[in-house]
Structure formats: structure tokens, C-alpha cells
């Protein structure tokens, strides 16, 4: 709870700084445009969190199939009714509901968490060990969702959902041997892809490894992000002093907000933020471990892994550890509905932690 509020507060401050230039250039000089909207959603999100924390998490199991079906239907609508979708930078990820936009993938993520957790509990440990019952059905669902997400395209959401699913299966008792084989097939698939569409992928890998080889073209985002991070140095340029946010960084208030943080606040503070996220993840797993039943454990794992993967993809992209893919940083990036969903899911996590049998050393 404290971690959540801390991250939320720091996130808002950093967003204000990072979005300042963006708002200055693109919102006609209203530099508080982004941060005020985000603040409003933070308040709504906190209310949602409180609300969700009072709802018995077992109740989610009952609506799980419906949520999954609705989520998949929403994703499918990108092909059926594309008019309600909104495209930003070549990716169609948002449905416009006038007052705000939201990403159906966010809904699907939560639906997958609940549905998979429910399914694992229903299937039981025996059937989970078998490939046919313990992995295959899940794989089909992930494949279906992944396929729909790649239509948008939305690579990072695909990875997140796949990793959420695999994590739940792993903790839920699926055969480790089979999962490893699956991972092996995945690696083979990647190698196959390189062989099949070699030039394209090799070029992308080259730009990823050395974005300065094409700093004005394909390497622009990567090089500008790395310049921001690296030039921050040990102590940073000071809050608000980022230069890279002045139109050099794409989406300085969103996917590349961590680069602005690194530039302005330096190694010390950016490391602190990494640690805070790591602590949140650790706390999530702690709740999973102590949860009253297996459903709670799996639900907590799903929610925590979702946050962890989201954060890691964002940070890895920004620091150049992985190729560029659009992923926001929870609590920090601008995006009202995402924040709302995130806080609501943390409310679910809180409810799970309440179910922990009172043994003694309880923090929250």
C-alpha cells in the first residue's frame, strides 16, 4: 500500500516534468495539461482500488469466462468495426470512448489472469501435469489473443499476456519439462524467423545493438533514449532539466518517461525507482505465497507478473537491453485508463492480502 502510494506520487511528479515539454510544444503551451488529467485518473484509480479491495476476490472467478469472451470480442472488433478504434503512431491499440481512450488489451490482461487462475484451480494438479489438459488449452487461448493483438500491432501486450499465462501455469503446477520444451520451441521459432525473414530482423537487431549507426532514421528513438539515459550521469541534470524531452525523445511522457527520469535524476534516483518496482513485485509474490488458497496465489502471481513484465519491458527498451517496442511504465506513463486498471488490480491484490491468515508480522 505504501509502495503503491509512493510510486504513484513519484510517478505524477516525474510525469509533470516529462510531459512539460511535450505539453509546451503540442498543447499550445499548457504545460500542466497531461499531469492534471493524470491526477484526476489517479484519484479515480485510488477509489477503484479501495472498492476492489473490499470485493472478495473469489467473486472474480464467476465472471472470468465472460470477461475473457468480452475482451476477445473487443480485440476482434478492430477488424469488424475499425471506426471506434484510434490509431497512434501506426498502432491501433485504443478504443475511443469520447471522455477518454482505453486499451482493450488491458481488459484482456486482467481477464486472462482471472480465467487462467480459475481454470488451473478447476483442472487440479493431476490434469495440470498433462500437456493436453495442463498446457494446450491455455496455449490456444494465448495464441488466439496474441494473434489478435499482433493485428493492432501490439507486441509488448502479446509478450505480457504470454508471460502472465506461462507464469500462472508454472506456479499452478504445469510440467516444468513441458514448459521448457515449449520455451525450446519458442527459441526455435525465433531462429526460424531470423532465417525466414533474415535481412529485416538482422537489420532490426543491428539498429537495436547500435542505434547510433542510423541516428536520424531507424535508430532515432533508440539513440535519443540512450543519450538521455547516459547523459544523466550519476546525479542527473536536475528535475525539469531534461534536454532530450524537447522533441528529441519520442513520447517523453509515455513510453520514454523512464529515459527522462534517468536524464534528470541520474543513476541514484533511477536505481531507487527500479528497486521500488522490484520491492512491489517482491511484495506481490509475498502475498501470492501467503494467500489463503491456490486461486488467490495464482491471481496474485498474475497481477504481479503483469506489472513486473510491463515495467521490465519498458526499462529494457529505454536502456537498450531489448529492441524498441511500445510499452508504458506503470504509475509513471501518461494514460488514464491504464492507471485506473492498474490501481483497481492492485485493489484485488489488497483483497487477497486481507485473506492471509493472521499469523503475526503483518505490514499492510
Amino acid at each position, binding site marked *: 500500500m505504501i509502495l503503491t502510494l509512493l510510486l504513484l506520487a513519484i510517478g505524477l511528479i516525474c510525469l509533470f516534468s516529462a510531459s512539460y515539454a511535450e505539453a509546451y510544444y503540442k498543447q499550445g503551451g499548457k504545460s500542466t495539461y497531461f499531469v492534471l488529467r493524470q491526477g484526476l485518473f489517479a484519484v479515480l484509480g485510488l477509489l477503484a482500488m479501495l472498492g476492489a479491495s473490499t470485493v472478495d476476490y473469489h467473486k472474480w472467478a464467476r465472471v472470468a469466462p465472460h470477461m475473457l469472451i468480452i475482451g476477445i470480442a473487443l480485440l476482434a472488433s478492430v477488424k469488424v468495426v475499425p471506426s471506434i478504434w484510434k490509431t497512434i503512431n501506426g498502432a491501433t491499440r485504443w478504443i475511443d470512448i469520447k471522455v477518454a481512450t482505453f486499451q482493450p488489451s488491458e481488459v484482456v490482461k486482467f481477464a486472462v489472469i482471472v480465467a487462467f487462475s480459475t481454470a488451473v484451480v478447476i483442472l487440479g494438479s493431476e490434469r495440470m501435469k498433462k500437456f493436453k489438459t495442463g498446457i494446450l488449452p491455455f496455449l490456444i487461448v494465448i495464441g488466439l489473443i496474441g494473434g489478435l493483438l499482433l493485428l493492432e500491432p501490439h507486441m509488448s501486450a502479446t509478450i505480457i499476456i504470454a508471460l502472465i499465462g506461462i507464469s500462472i501455469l508454472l506456479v499452478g503446477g504445469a510440467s516444468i519439462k513441458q514448459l521448457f520444451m515449449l520455451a525450446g520451441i519458442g527459441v526455435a521459432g525465433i531462429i526460424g524467423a531470423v532465417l525466414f525473414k533474415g535481412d529485416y530482423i538482422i537489420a532490426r537487431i543491428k539498429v537495436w545493438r547500435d542505434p547510433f549507426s542510423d541516428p536520424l532514421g531507424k535508430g532515432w528513438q533508440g539513440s535519443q533514449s540512450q543519450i538521455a539515459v547516459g547523459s544523466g*550521469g550519476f546525479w542527473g541534470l536536475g528535475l525539469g532539466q531534461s534536454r532530450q524531452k524537447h522533441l528529441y525523445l519520442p513520447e517523453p511522457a509515455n513510453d520514454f518517461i523512464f529515459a527522462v527520469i534517468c536524464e534528470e535524476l541520474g543513476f541514484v534516483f533511477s*536505481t531507487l525507482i527500479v528497486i521500488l*518496482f522490484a520491492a512491489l513485485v517482491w511484495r506481490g509474490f509475498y502475498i501470492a505465497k501467503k494467500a489463503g488458497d491456490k486461486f488467490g496465489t495464482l491471481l496474485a502471481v498474475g497481477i504481479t507478473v503483469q506489472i513486473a513484465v510491463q515495467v521490465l519491458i519498458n526499462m529494457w527498451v529505454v536502456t537498450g537491453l531489448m529492441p524498441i517496442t511500445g510499452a508504458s511504465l506503470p504509475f509513471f506513463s501518461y494514460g488514464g485508463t491504464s492507471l485506473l486498471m492498474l490501481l483497481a488490480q492492485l485493489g484485488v491484490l489488497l483483497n487477497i492480502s486481507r485473506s492471509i491468515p493472521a499469523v503475526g508480522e503483518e505490514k499492510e
Partner: protein
Amino acid sequence: MKDNRADLSTVKRLRFVLIFALVLFAAVIARLFYMQVINHDFYEQKAAATQMRDKTLYPARGTIYDTNMKPLAISASTEMFVLMGNKVKDDAQRAYIAENISEMLGMEYSEVFKKTQETSSYVVIARGIEKDAADKVRAFIRKNEGFDRMMYFQNDATRYYPYGSFLSHVLGFVGADEQGLFGIEKIYDEELSGTVGRSVTATNPRGDEMPFEYEVYYEAKDGNSLVLTIDEVLQHYLEKNLEIAYKDNKVRQSTVGVVMDVNTGGILAMASYPEFDLNDPFTIADPKIIAAIEAESDPAKKEEEKKDALYKQWNNKAVSFTYYPGSTFKIITASTALEQNVVNENSTFKCSGRYTVSGRSISCWKSDGSHGTQTLGKAIQNSCNPAFMQIGFKIGKENFTKYVGAFGLREKTGIDLPGEAVGLYNLKQDIDLAVYSFGQNFTITPIQLITAVSAVANGGTLLKPYLVKEIVDQNGNTVKSFGRNEVRQVVSEDTSKRMCKLLEDVVTYGTGKNAYVAGYRVCGKTGTTEKIADQIREGRDDLRVSSFIAFAPANDPKIAVLILLDEPMVKPVTGGLTVAPVVRRFLTEAMPYLGVEPQYTEEEMKTKNVTVPNLVGLSLDKADAALKTSGLKSVVRGTGGKVTDQRPAAGSIITNTANVILYLGGTAPDTPVTMPDLSGMTLERAQKTLQSLGLFAKVDGAKGTTGNIIVTKQNVESGQTLKYGDVVTIELSDMDQRAG
């Protein structure tokens, strides 16, 4: 429990996933440590290269004004096109940029391509770009993604000469980087160009400065402006008359003129004709030369010829041309002799048509006879060579050389112009002294001669000639001013006075008669010499430098004028016939402009040019009275009480020997009249001819009862149709003035 043993417990699986996640987080921290601490410098340098823009700030070049603050060379605001060479991707992109930019800016492809290969973040591709061309390039930048991050425009200032070829040889011009290349622009380059500034700013990719303080800025300081001694009006008169002289005399090379304020040494006008366009100095102005170059087939030779032609075009002959001064130099010889007291006005010199020195017979210019025995005054008026050889020997070699040096003829005058030359002077033997004394076989420059003669005119003080009288900063404050700068007293005031009288007589009675300006007392001396070396080289015998030097007014000299025709082709070529009229035309305009009141002698009053008053509406008596004050008379047509019309019209300027036609009742006829050819006629005959046609004349030029004074120029060509009562201008010259 058996099953659970084969599999890991849920807790262990949880721990596995957690540890896996924490390792990935740790990787982020390790990566941050690597980027922000270990490799920080690399990224910081990259950041600086991306964000910082090092700009050179070019100052505006100072203005060059004439003496009355009329701007003659100004800085117009333009733009320069800058490429961030470090951001260009590859040669394909370089070629693409060079191809488009070279076309839009009218440059050579190879030149632009070469510049795009520079890897500096600040490569100036072109300067002085006009808005139209810049807009084209801007559209090109917008069309190509990413180009706005690697090229941009910056303010620039470009030299512009509002009057094109006006004062071209003096002003000079600037090169592609606004550096002075010739003339005033070159010699005062440091003053004019100012100080280049530099700014290092943090900018966003659009090139806008970021909204916070982060810059180093050294302000550019605009250049200082110059105020010249040149008077735009006199310069215009000079250039106009040099052009007329060039055309009238079919000059092969050029006409050169200098006008100096004899009391300060300030240059009031200086020109050569043909001129060239300062806004386009690299184009050869003379179509004949272009044709000659085009005819050359060897490309290397062609290039060489073109270069030579350009240098010749830009050459300011007033300071760089070395020539035999000829008889104009007799002023110096005579002044020296008077100063040394070896001759006086009563000395006499015998001319038998030739004079023998060291066994060599040197003839006088007057080959068809001799001057006989002459006084000093007559010898100067006749420009008699034997007389001047005798005067030279009275002076002696040592003193002669001393005075030539004292008059500044063996050193640069130090005028503030580049390219000043010094001639050859090597007086050793008697024969040298003999020919040197009438200005042969040694060379000087026009600026040296006019400076020396100004000393004779101004009371004997040699002054340093100068062109810039003031340097002012951009706020109009005077930084430095220049004025009369005395070099030395060469001759006494008394000698000066006596020389003025002698030289006034040259114009009144002698070879300078054609430089006579009614109402003004002009002093002057002719001079024509053969260009011996050029004649030998070209195998001809008609290459001359014909010149005339004058100063006025005789009683209180204000300005000196030297006009020189290099290779005039219309014969006969003599200073008196060829150049003196040019000087006269200049002085006729210049003297009234300078505010010198004309003082007519009684003789002059009889034939001066007057303005015809308005007589319409007056009674005949009153009209006659009005005409009488101008020295005019009338003839009457018709009968009546009042004047109803007049010819010529009121306001016309005519010579007062004509009769104004008054109409008493009715109006003047409107019949067309054909202009006759008056050349070769005496004034009397010309006037009669005109009168019989109903035309009137304004008469300029030589006057007097002696000599062979005839019409040499009319401002309306014969055969042209005029109206009854129109006024034409005719010029008279004394054809007897054939002295060199």
C-alpha cells in the same frame, strides 16, 4: 505426496519466478550503472553533438557612404544555408542533397557535394541567399523526413551596391564570404567586416532554442561604416564625361579621371571607363572581350584570358597605371625652375624645332616649324620641348631628381587604396635630363601627378591623398576621422602663385584653350605621349596616352582634375584637342555645383549663355528692357501692343548673341525643322545657319578671336527633326591646339 515429490512445490515455483524477475530488475540497474556511470562521457558527448548547436554569427558589413552620407555600398539581409555534416547518413544521401540544393541555389553540383562530405556539425553551404531560393529549399526540407534535423537557415547579410557600376573601381567588392577583394572594400576590410561572433545553444530538433538558459554567446559586432571624400555628384559628372570621351574618341583601353580637393588631398571623384557591375563583378562587362575569349579554343588559355580580362576590368588605373606623363609634367619642371630661381617670367628660350643634347637631336612636337624665341609663359603655352630641355639643364640633374622626389613622384602617395604602383625613374645622363624635363622616358601614376600638381596649386604643400574622411560605428559615432595630411612643403607660396598665372594663360591663350570654361578661371596643361613599348609589341604607331590636368579657379584653386585617355583612336590625338574638351565639360558642371560664382570678363559677357525670361504679356518696351539685362536683343513678328508668344520659350538657355523672336499677336509657327550638320563651322556661321532655320544655340567651349575655333560637337545629330524655335547645344574647339 508422491506426486508432489516429483514436482516442485508451489512455493519453490513462486520463488523461481520471483528470483527470475529480480534478476531482470538487477540487469536494469547494472545497465544503468554502465550507461550513467561508466560510459557517461560517451553519452554526454553524443548529447552535446545532438543538442548543442555551434553557430557562427556573422556581423553586418559596414556601409560605405559618399561625403554627403549617400550610401554607396550597403549590407542587405539575406540568409545562409547550414548543413550539420555530422548527421548526413551516407554518400547516397549526400548526392541527393547536393543534387537538389545545387539546383535550387544555382550552385555547382560538385561544389555542394564536396561541402556535404565535411563532417562538422556546422557546414555553411551557401551564403547570401535571397528569400525566393531559401523558400524553395525550405519546401525541400519539409518534404524529406529527418532533413529538418540536419539542415537549417541562419540570418546573413550580403553586400549590395545600390548604384551598380557607380564608383566601381574605387569601392571594389567582396567575395563569397563577404571578404573585401578589391578597392576600399579590401583596404578597409578589417574596419568594415566587424567581429564574428559565436553562439553555442541547446536546441530542439527543429532548431529552436530550448526554453531554458543553456548557451554560450559571443556577440557579433557589426562592422564600422566609412564616409568617403567622394562626392556622388562630382563622381557622376566625371563618370558621365569619361564615358562620352571613351565613345567620342573610340578609346581602345580606357579613360581615367581623378578629381582632388587641392587644399585637403581628399579625392572628390575617381573613375575609369569602362566600369563594371559591382553586384556582378565576375562577369566581363565588355562584349568585345567576351567575344575574343570565346574565340579561344584552348580551355586552359581561355581560363587564363578570362582571368586576365577580369583583373583588367577591376584594375583601378588611377593608382596602378604607370605612364609617361609627357607635357603635363612641364608643370613640375617649371615649378622647380621657378623655385630654384634659375628662370623667371622674363627668361627667354629659343626653339628651332629641335634641340641637340649629347650629340642627339631631339625635335619639338611642332614638326612643321619652330616656336622661335619665347618667354617662359609662351614656352608653357606652346608646350615647347626645346625650351623645357633648356630649363631642365638650368635646374641640373641633382636638383631635378630632388624635386621630382619632393613632389612625391618617386614613391607611393599612400592613398588608401590597394594596388598603388610606382613608376620607373632612372635619371643618369644629360640625355635623360633632357627628355625627363618634358615628361618622357620615366613613368608615374595618375594619382602621383594630380597630387603633385595639387601641391603647385595649393601654395606649395604636398598632401597625402585620401578617400576615407571618417570611420563611424554602427551607432553613428565617429571612431576616427581623417583630413589634410601634409607631407612636405615642396615649393613656396610665391612659386605657386606664379605657376597659377602661367597655367591660367595656357587655358586662356595656349594649348589648353579647349578646357576654357566661360566665367571660370581655369589653369591647365596638356600632355600626350606615345606608348612606345606597346607600339613595338603590337607593331603599330598610333598608341597614345593623352591627358589633361587642370585646376580651378586660378585665383583660389579648389579642385584639380586629371583626365587621361589610354589609346584614343580618333585623330588628331593631342591633349588640347582630345582631352581638354572633356575637362571643360566636367568643369562646366562641377564649378557651379561647388558653389564657385562665375565671373565673366567683358569679352565673355558678349557671348555668354543666358536664360531667356518670360516675355509673354509684356509690352514691347518692357520685353526689350527685360532682354537687355541678359544681353539679348529681339526681332519682332506682327504688330500689336503686347507680346503674345516668344521663341525660344522662357527658361531656355541660349548664347546671348542670338535674337529672341517676339510675336505681337498670334503664336509662333509649329513647323518642323531638320537639324543641320554644323561641324567644322565657325561660331558665326553656325549661328547664322541655325538662325535661318529658326533654331537657337547654347554655345560651350573654346572662345576667342585667335586660333582656328570651329564647331566640334552638337548635341542633336544632323538630320534629326526639331521644332521651330528649339535650342541645341554646340561645342567649339580650337583646332590649332595640337601640342602634346
